[in-house]
């Protein structure tokens, strides 16, 4: 969030800059900024990746969690240029966060980003009429603009045609044809970028007020659009645009994916495949990472002299940060799948199939992607919800997303199930009691999410039914480069989070176990600050059958759910839970009644034991109101659920 654009770091008195082509030191002139604009699915990001490669940074726009993708393009003569990839939009009504950000950047109203010096408008030329609806408002900004007709190879393959000459003359812009996927035409875009000059001090603040309606029009909205549509029609007619024939492949795939019976089956198969990949294929990778962390931790423990520093580093930081890094394979596999599903065009179809079900509980089809992502981690899932155009739908979605059984719950479930549920067959040899309990916990999460959404949309987020519109882009083969760069982004963001939040939390926890000092060393857990906190909350959790040890675990797992496993290990004097899981299970069986163990499972299914989620909720909902409500609601639900479970079992 605090990262500014490279451009804003250029200071006029920077002496290190090499001389530019005209002898002026490059650093005296700000790096030009070009904004990449276009409708969703026009190939914007693919072109962006072709132009910038690895020289890109992902950060958030100030105040919102919309990601800001800025990359540096190397031009001839040592010159450089910054390119910002704006979220895809259909217009400038600023209904969604994405639209608001795009509008603000184009209007030069985002602090830390200079006003763009030029624009590149990219459109899918196979759907030219539809895509050119953006051309009028974008040209109205009055900046030098390049129009990129992307996917022009596909247009011609399917028998379509467009004449750039009249199009360029009529619109008064330069035109380049590309196929961003194969890289054809990208050099021509680069050549255009060569011509962009930074306006020193930024483009003067022209009163730019992008709206869907021309400034000063008193006409109803419909007329403004009708005028825009007429302009587009005239333009494409002059350019001799012949729309491409139907894509036989897209039609055939839709016949399957949107088939009355086969469609939902394929949908189910895709969901199961994503699950399978998260929970089985990721395991060897996770084991490898775990082994690396444990081995390196042991190595550190034997290498460093015995001191408080070693204890902090090995027991605190190494174990704590390691417990989060271990989820990296799952998150990467999830994002690889989601990336393939999105870039291929299937995700839009999945959203359409999901919409009917979602609509019944008060959500909409676009909620499907965040909810599915929630099975890996609620944090990226909540971010994924920003494509939901209706604010109430979005809030309801991000409110219920943490009920999805995220992978951080799994270590907790695994420990308690292994300790308390006998490994016996339940339904034949395939479904055992343990698997049934695990499935039941997943089901519990879904029921809670559905019930909560239903409740919310009838109370706090009550609204008249909104419309759901989903453009179904033609099916395309995802570009490996785009997928790879996205995965790289995700890992960086995830590791940064693990590095900052979890690091801080583990240090605090470790410190609490070390004080007050007794006889110059660490106190007994019972006597430590952490143990005392456990005792303070013991009366509250006693009705659930939990003792102070579980209480400490509940407090520490506020940072992240899986932390309770390590905490219990520490409390029971087991060095790490990995070394002798049997011992920890044995001790748990001694202290916890079976009913209380089920209660603890239910508590973890419901309660929002994750500070990262709370933090991201605050940013996404723009305040503390929603995360506070969500935290309290989920905590009460968890408490009530655990209470009931303790009485019943």
């Amino acid at each position: 969030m605090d990262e500014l654009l490279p451009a804003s770091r250029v200071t006029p008195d920077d002496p290190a800059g090499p001389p530019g082509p005209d002898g002026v030191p490059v650093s005296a002139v700000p790096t030009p900024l070009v904004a990449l604009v276009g409708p969703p699915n026009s190939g914007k990001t693919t072109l962006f990746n072709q132009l910038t490669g690895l020289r890109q940074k992902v950060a958030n726009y100030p105040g919102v969690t919309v990601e800001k993708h800025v990359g540096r393009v190397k031009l001839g003569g040592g010159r450089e240029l910054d390119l910002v990839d704006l979220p895809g939009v259909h217009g400038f009504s600023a209904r969604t966060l994405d639209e608001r950000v795009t509008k603000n950047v184009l209007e030069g109203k985002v602090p830390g980003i200079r006003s763009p010096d030029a624009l590149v408008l990219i459109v899918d030329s196979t759907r030219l009429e539809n895509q050119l609806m953006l051309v009028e408002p974008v040209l109205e900004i009055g900046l030098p603009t390049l129009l990129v007709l992307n996917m022009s190879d596909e247009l011609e393959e399917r028998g379509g045609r467009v004449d750039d000459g009249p199009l360029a003359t009529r619109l008064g812009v330069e035109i380049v044809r590309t196929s961003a996927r194969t890289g054809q035409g990208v050099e021509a875009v680069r050549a255009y970028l060569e011509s962009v000059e930074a306006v020193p001090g930024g483009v003067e603040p022209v009163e730019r007020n992008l709206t869907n309606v021309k400034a000063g029009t008193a006409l109803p909205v419909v007329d403004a659009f009708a005028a825009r549509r007429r302009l587009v029609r005239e333009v494409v007619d002059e350019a001799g645009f012949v729309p491409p024939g139907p894509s036989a492949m897209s039609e055939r795939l839709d016949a399957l994916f949107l088939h009355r019976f086969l469609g939902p089956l394929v949908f189910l198969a895709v969901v199961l495949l994503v699950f399978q990949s998260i929970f089985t294929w990721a395991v060897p990778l996770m084991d490898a990472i775990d082994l690396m962390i444990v081995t390196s931790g042991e190595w550190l423990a034997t290498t460093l002299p015995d001191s408080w520093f070693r204890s902090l580093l090995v027991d605190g930081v190494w174990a704590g940060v390691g417990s989060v890094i271990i989820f990296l394979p799952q998150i990467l596999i999830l994002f690889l799948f989601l990336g393939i599903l999105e870039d291929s065009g299937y995700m839009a179809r999945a959203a359409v199939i999901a919409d009917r079900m979602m609509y019944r509980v008060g959500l909409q089809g676009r909620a499907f992607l965040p909810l599915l992502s929630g099975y890996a981690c609620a944090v990226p899932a909540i971010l994924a919800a920003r494509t939901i155009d209706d604010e109430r739908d979005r809030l309801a979605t991000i409110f219920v997303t943490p009920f999805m059984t995220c992978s951080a719950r799994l270590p907790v479930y695994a420990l308690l199930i292994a300790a308390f549920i006998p490994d016996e067959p339940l339904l034949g040899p395939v479904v055992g009691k343990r698997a049934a309990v695990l499935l039941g916990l997943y089901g519990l999460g879904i029921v809670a999410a559905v019930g909560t959404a239903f409740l919310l949309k009838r109370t706090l987020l009550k609204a008249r039914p909104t419309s759901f519109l989903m453009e179904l882009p033609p099916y395309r083969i995802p570009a490996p480069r785009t997928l790879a760069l996205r995965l790289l982004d995700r890992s960086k963001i995830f590791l940064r989070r693990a590095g900052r939040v979890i690091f801080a939390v583990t240090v605090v926890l470790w410190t609490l176990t070390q004080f007050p000092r007794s006889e110059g060393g660490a106190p007994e857990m019972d006597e430590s600050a952490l143990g005392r906190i456990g005792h303070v909350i013991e009366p509250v959790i006693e009705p659930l059958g939990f003792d102070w040890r579980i209480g400490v675990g509940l407090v520490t797992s506020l940072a992240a759910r899986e932390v309770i496993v390590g905490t219990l290990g520490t409390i029971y004097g087991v060095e790490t839970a990995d070394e002798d899981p049997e011992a920890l299970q044995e001790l748990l069986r001694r202290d916890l009644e079976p009913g209380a163990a089920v209660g603890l499972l239910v508590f973890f299914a419901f309660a929002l034991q994750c500070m990262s989620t709370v933090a991201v909720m605050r940013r996404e909902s723009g305040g503390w109101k929603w995360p506070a409500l969500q935290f309290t609601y989920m905590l009460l639900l968890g408490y009530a659920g655990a209470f009931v479970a303790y009485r019943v079992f």
Partner: protein
Amino acid sequence: MQALPVVEKLVPDPVRELRLGDIPLRQEVELVSIDLPADQAEPLLERGVLPGCRICPVRSSPGGDPIVSIDGSLLALRRETAACLCVRILSSLQDVA
């Protein structure tokens, strides 16, 4: 007190009766008007769903919602939305084409 019935559902207006939702697959129609409040109509307008445009239902989603073709793009709507789009059938000559 009983809420008043929604007018357009009960009183058949001979001119505006035909809605996009009533149109069979592959029958191209012209949009006459959008019977939705402005904030809900705007996303439609941005995507070129404007009075005068031609829409053709091409498929039905497994949930029974229409998927229409407009300006060479495929757009999925809810049937509730389709029921608010007033359309008229183009003359038979154009239908053949």
